[in-house]
């Protein structure tokens, strides 16, 4: 698919090291990572803890910058953006789903979904209607006025997915989206993400969850900051 429609994501020889506190040496999280992903792909990045997969996801989402190399999303150089540009990019082009949901506890489920749309300046009536539609889409239409504390973990993650889709991103990035869920709820989440992908959203997910990785149509395996395996698109 990457070849057919042109790559949506181009990661080219990216390195990233973190300075540790005190005199400890820096830790190389990524050591020359390169890969491409096409529009509509469902890609899982897997590997042991500390292999650099979350760092890679952060670089793709523009919330971190590489030390060397480049990251291009939809033809835009994410690594060269100013803070303001990166913020706008995250708002309109990328959707984030976190392991710990991170919904705003002060807002209802619908308001959480509305938040990125309000930031994007979309009219109130439009964002209300879309928030409602997205909550229906993730199966939480009846829970729109509930606060996060009134929702289960699975429901909170569904709201987080609805929030991530609010501004119709070209890329959905999920960091261990089933990490805090029990097996049954995790399976529902896997099904939901697959449906989101089938409906046209490109997804890159970082996970330890083998079921989630298998649900993706492509797996990239990482170890010690390097890509050590790439299944390519299954069935492509």
């Amino acid at each position, binding site marked *: 698919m990457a070849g057919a429609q042109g790559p949506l994501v181009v990661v080219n020889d990216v390195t990233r090291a973190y300075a540790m506190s005190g005199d400890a040496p820096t830790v190389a999280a990524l050591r020359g990572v390169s890969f491409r992903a096409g529009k509509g792909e469902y890609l899982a990045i897997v590997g042991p803890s500390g292999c650099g997969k979350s760092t890679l996801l*952060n670089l793709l989402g523009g*919330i971190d910058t590489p030390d060397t190399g480049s990251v291009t999303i939809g033809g835009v150089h994410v690594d060269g953006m100013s803070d303001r540009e990166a*913020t*706008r990019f*995250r708002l309109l082009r990328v959707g984030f789903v976190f392991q710990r949901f991170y919904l705003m506890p002060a807002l209802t489920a619908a308001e959480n979904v509305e*938040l990125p749309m309000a930031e994007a300046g979309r009219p109130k009536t439009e964002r209300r209607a879309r928030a409602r539609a997205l909550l229906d889409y993730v199966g939480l239409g009846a829970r729109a006025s509930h606060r996060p504390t009134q929702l289960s973990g699975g429901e909170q993650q569904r709201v987080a997915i609805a929030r991530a889709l609010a501004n119709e991103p070209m890329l959905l990035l999920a960091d261990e989206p089933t990490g805090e869920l029990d097996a049954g709820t995790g399976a529902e989440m896997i099904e939901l993400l697959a449906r989101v992908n089938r409906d046209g959203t490109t997804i890159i997910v970082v996970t330890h969850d083998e079921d989630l990785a298998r649900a993706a149509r492509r797996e990239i395996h990482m170890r010690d900051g390097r890509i050590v395996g790439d299944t390519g698109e299954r069935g492509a």
Partner: protein
Amino acid sequence: MLLRLAWTSLTLHRSRTLLAMLGVAVAAAMLLDMVMLSSGMRESFRSLLVTTGYQIRLAPRGTLPFDTDASIEGGGGLVDSLSAIPGVAAVSPVLGGQLHVTHEGHAVTAFALGGVAAVQGDYDIVAGRAPAAVNELVGSADFLAAAGARVGDTVMASAGFDPELRGTTGLRPLVIVGRAHFIYTPAGQRAVALPIATLQRMEGSAATDRVSLAMVRADSGVDVEHLRAAVEHEFPRVSAISTETALQQVDQRLSYFRQLALILGVVSLVVGFLLVTTMVTVSVNERLGEIVVMRAIGVARMRVVSQILLESVALMSVGTAAGLGLGLLTGEYLNGILSGFPGLPAEIRFFVFAPHDAWTALGLLVGAGLLAGIYPSWRGASRPIAITLREEAI
């Protein structure tokens, strides 16, 4: 939505928010009281001096009105000469003394003011009328109560006791024709007012026509300071004190009050500032995860900062509003205590609400709260997103 976020965030920790607001309210009340104190007594004194419209007061050279027992000879001539000066609209001569009456075997002593009813500026008639005839007087409520007298009664009054003759001086019957509120006397002071000629005769000072002070009212549009200088030049044996010069003297005497008020006011501001800084810092640290996630999903840094600042402004505004009420209440309470300060006119208020000063001070406090929120909110919104998310996840 930002407003909603700010509001809900505050209500999420009700006890903490209430305590912070209470702290701000106390700081605001203290600041307001200090502002009211620093300018209140001066403004109160000013309004007391100008209330009767007299802008210049003449006292024996080198003294302040009623500071000593010194008096000016030739009061009648002084009044005539003053009245002849261009720009003088009215002159009110005043003689201070004491008046004694007997009630149920006890002597009741009152501060006596001799004056000319038509131009007097020392009292307001509350009941009855001003004394016009030579055998008439008006008394304060405290005097009437102590003397067991009512308006219409006649009392035997004397101006003093002569130890050599072992008898009262100036004893005569006086008809009480009114009850008056005396503007310049301390609370609880028994006071009477009667025609100046009567008091002079009772005191035996009629021969020298003495007055304790003379008050001068200038024509409208006349430069009071210029008139004051002219009067003093014309009458070298008196000190002419204008309202402004009197206020300057008050300023000198109250400088310690103002310094104290300034220091305590600054302390209040600093306390309010530190309180809000601490509160916002704690709040930001607690919500770092939320804040960086907002940044991660594309909420602009300034928007995040604004949301947190809204919280600190809300804290300060509500706290300040409560502090306004608290400050007025405590000011009133302290006024009640201090009104009994010996020798001060009961009308003097230590804590006077001057809207401009008060709004400025309270505005400063809200501004300080805003400033206090800027650093922690900016710091929180500027945290590196990826690193903070990783730390939050641990």
